[in-house]
């Protein structure tokens, strides 16, 4: 018999005050994520407990206790305040998964400033769009990434400080300043800025169908959701060694790669390395990882590498497995049961929700391929796409919608009120995904409800890709759509019409692919380019991506008369 409470027990009389009580928070108190994840844990008598085991691809290892992350985040906060960083200003973290990224995140929050993590593989255009939109004041980066910042700094008048954590004695350029976290005198005591529940904390950028990426603004109260979901869904316990594969440039990497585990006082391990099946298994074995939060794309890549490799390692330390990013296919669940003796538990959420909202709980029977059931305190449904009323018919697909009001819901999109309001209909928050609900209340993913491309668990907006495609001298017009992919669920496919004088060729295709990879990111790079004479358009000249997307998915296009006359 399972020792886990049943779903009914978890949901009965649920109130987020459970989390508030456990975190020692009372309404009206000051609340600061940086303090909660470091100083509070030390005060609980865990100052000497390991907070972070870090390893890079060469096997170099560093270990930090909770007292270390408390003092080092103080040190970073003190440094930032010394530079004149003010509460509310945006400070970007643009680094690989180095310790400075994780500890710097807490340090920024301790100053009252807003942490703006960005994926370090972003190209200069992606970086510029996000820094420019957020009017970012400072960026903390590494020597190898500062080159991209240098390309765009002259267009960023608000960017006053470019902080390089590994510059050493290298010559600095305009606005650059060197900061070596572990060599700087440690600041034992720092007066944490008195943020409260509604003070902005983290700004993550997310892609939509139209326009440039939107800045999703979270507040310090988000920790209430992130703490409890990490505890209940990831099943974190005090003796666990936890590994989250996600990069803190994305929301999973902050909500469950920093805040969730550290608010729970858990030891987490970080591998600053690209994908490698053997490397990953060795890492799990070496550090005795017990809870692993991964992603379907990574799991499918591991499946490709075969079962023999798994058998060569002692992975009996693994106790609980979870997955996030895109729907976890049934085959992956069955495979993990076979090779690890454990099932991956799929979890569903997004940047705007800040925490897991639909999930498979530990102890709950898993239906392979299902997203699971709503987390307690989350009211979810599927809506009719025309009336925006809940669908009560079992198995009928509709729009996944949530009743607003859970603690980690974003408060707004940065400088984009219209975009934020467009996410709500009839008092429901629309996730932008479609699903059905079965007779047991399990949700089953159907697909996206817009043109956003979910590739390897990351949302990529077609507009951003199309804009970058038009910068290429050969491209007259373009459309970017999703194309099904066995590993990444979807990949980007671009349809391109060339300017007069240019001919389609393999060379040109490769050149355009690399142009997007460098300007935006590897995720946004079209994995295929189809050259066509003209794109399908409405009467008013708007490109109809739906026609192209349906062709890729081998789906019927349906009635286009309304669209084409637009």
């Amino acid at each position, binding site marked *: 018999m399972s020792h886990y409470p049943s779903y009914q027990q978890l949901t009965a009389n649920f109130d987020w005050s459970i989390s508030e009580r456990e975190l020692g928070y009372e309404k009206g108190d000051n609340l600061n994520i940086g303090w909660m994840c470091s100083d509070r844990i030390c005060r609980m008598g865990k100052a000497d407990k390991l907070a972070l085991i870090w390893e890079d*691809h060469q096997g170099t290892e560093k270990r930090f206790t909770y007292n270390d992350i408390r003092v080092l985040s103080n040190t970073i906060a003190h440094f930032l305040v010394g530079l004149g960083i003010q509460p509310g200003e945006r400070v970007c973290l643009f680094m*690989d998964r180095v310790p400075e990224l994780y500890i710097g995140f807490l340090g920024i929050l301790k100053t009252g400033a807003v942490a703006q993590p960005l994926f370090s*593989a972003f190209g200069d255009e992606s970086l510029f769009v996000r820094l420019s939109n957020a009017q970012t004041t400072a960026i903390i980066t590494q020597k*190898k990434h500062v*080159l*991209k910042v240098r390309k765009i700094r002259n267009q960023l008048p608000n960017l006053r400080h470019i902080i390089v954590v590994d510059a050493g004695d290298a010559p600095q350029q305009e606005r650059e300043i060197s900061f070596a976290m572990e060599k700087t005198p440690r600041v034992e005591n720092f007066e944490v800025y008195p943020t409260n529940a509604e003070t902005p904390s983290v700004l993550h950028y997310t892609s939509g169908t139209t326009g440039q990426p939107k800045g999703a603004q979270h507040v310090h109260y988000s920790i209430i959701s992130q703490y409890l979901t990490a505890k209940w869904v990831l099943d974190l316990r005090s003796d666990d060694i936890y590994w989250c594969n996600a990069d803190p440039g994305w929301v999973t990497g902050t909500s469950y790669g920093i805040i969730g585990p550290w608010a729970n006082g858990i030891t987490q391990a970080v591998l*600053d*390395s*690209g*994908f*490698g*099946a*053997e*490397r990953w298994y060795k890492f799990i074995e070496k550090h005795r990882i017990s809870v692993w939060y991964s992603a379907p794309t990574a799991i499918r*890549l591991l499946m*490709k*590498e075969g079962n023999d490799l798994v058998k060569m390692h002692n992975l009996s330390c693994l106790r609980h497995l979870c997955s996030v990013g895109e729907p976890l296919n049934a085959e992956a669940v069955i495979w993990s049961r076979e090779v690890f003796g454990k099932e991956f538990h799929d979890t569903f959420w997004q940047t705007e929700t800040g925490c897991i909202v639909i999930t498979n709980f530990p102890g709950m029977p898993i239906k392979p391929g299902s997203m699971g059931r709503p987390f307690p305190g989350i009211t979810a449904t599927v809506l009719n796409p025309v009336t925006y009323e809940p669908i009560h018919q079992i198995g009928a697909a509709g729009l996944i919608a949530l009743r607003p009001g859970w603690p980690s819901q974003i408060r707004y999109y940065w400088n984009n009120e219209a975009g934020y309001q467009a996410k709500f209909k009839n008092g429901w928050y629309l996730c932008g995904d479609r699903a059905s609900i079965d007779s047991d209340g399990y949700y089953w993913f159907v697909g996206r409800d817009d043109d956003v491309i979910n*590739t*390897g668990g990351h949302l990529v907006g077609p507009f951003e890709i199309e804009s970058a495609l038009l910068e290429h001298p050969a491209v007259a017009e373009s459309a970017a759509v999703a194309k099904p992919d066995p590993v*990444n669920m979807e*990949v980007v496919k671009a349809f391109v019409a060339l300017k007069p004088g240019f001919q389609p060729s*393999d*060379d040109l*295709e*490769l*050149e355009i*692919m*690399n*142009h997007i*990879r*460098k300007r935006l990111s*590897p*995720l946004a*790079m079209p*994995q295929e380019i189809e050259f066509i004479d003209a794109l399908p358009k409405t009467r008013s000249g708007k490109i109809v991506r739906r026609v192209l997307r349906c062709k890729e998915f081998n789906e019927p296009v349906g009635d286009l008369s309304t669209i084409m006359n637009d």
Partner: protein
Amino acid sequence: MFGARIAGKTGSSNLMPVTTAVCAGNRAGQEEKRLIMDDLTKMIRDYVVREYIEEGDDREITETTPLISGGIVDSFSMVSLKRFLEKKCNVQIPDADATPVAFDTVQSIVSLVRRFQKT
């Protein structure tokens, strides 16, 4: 030679011309084979430096530098690298063989290409 730092990049977006001998696999003797291997290695390494390393980045790329596990080339970028190899070396690399392990170093990429070259 392979441990040396790449002194500079070609800087051009034009793809590097490759002689037919490099990829056609029509090797006669050991000396020619070695020469062919060196050219192929150089071509791949130069491409990686040109396309995946920022101008001004002084990181060394050698024959054995971990590209995928070292975070220089990510799994998404493997597609364009594979496309480059297929086109320039006139090979077809099945998706099942285009794994992160096979693409992890210049050396392993060379082995992969040679495996699928027509003999």
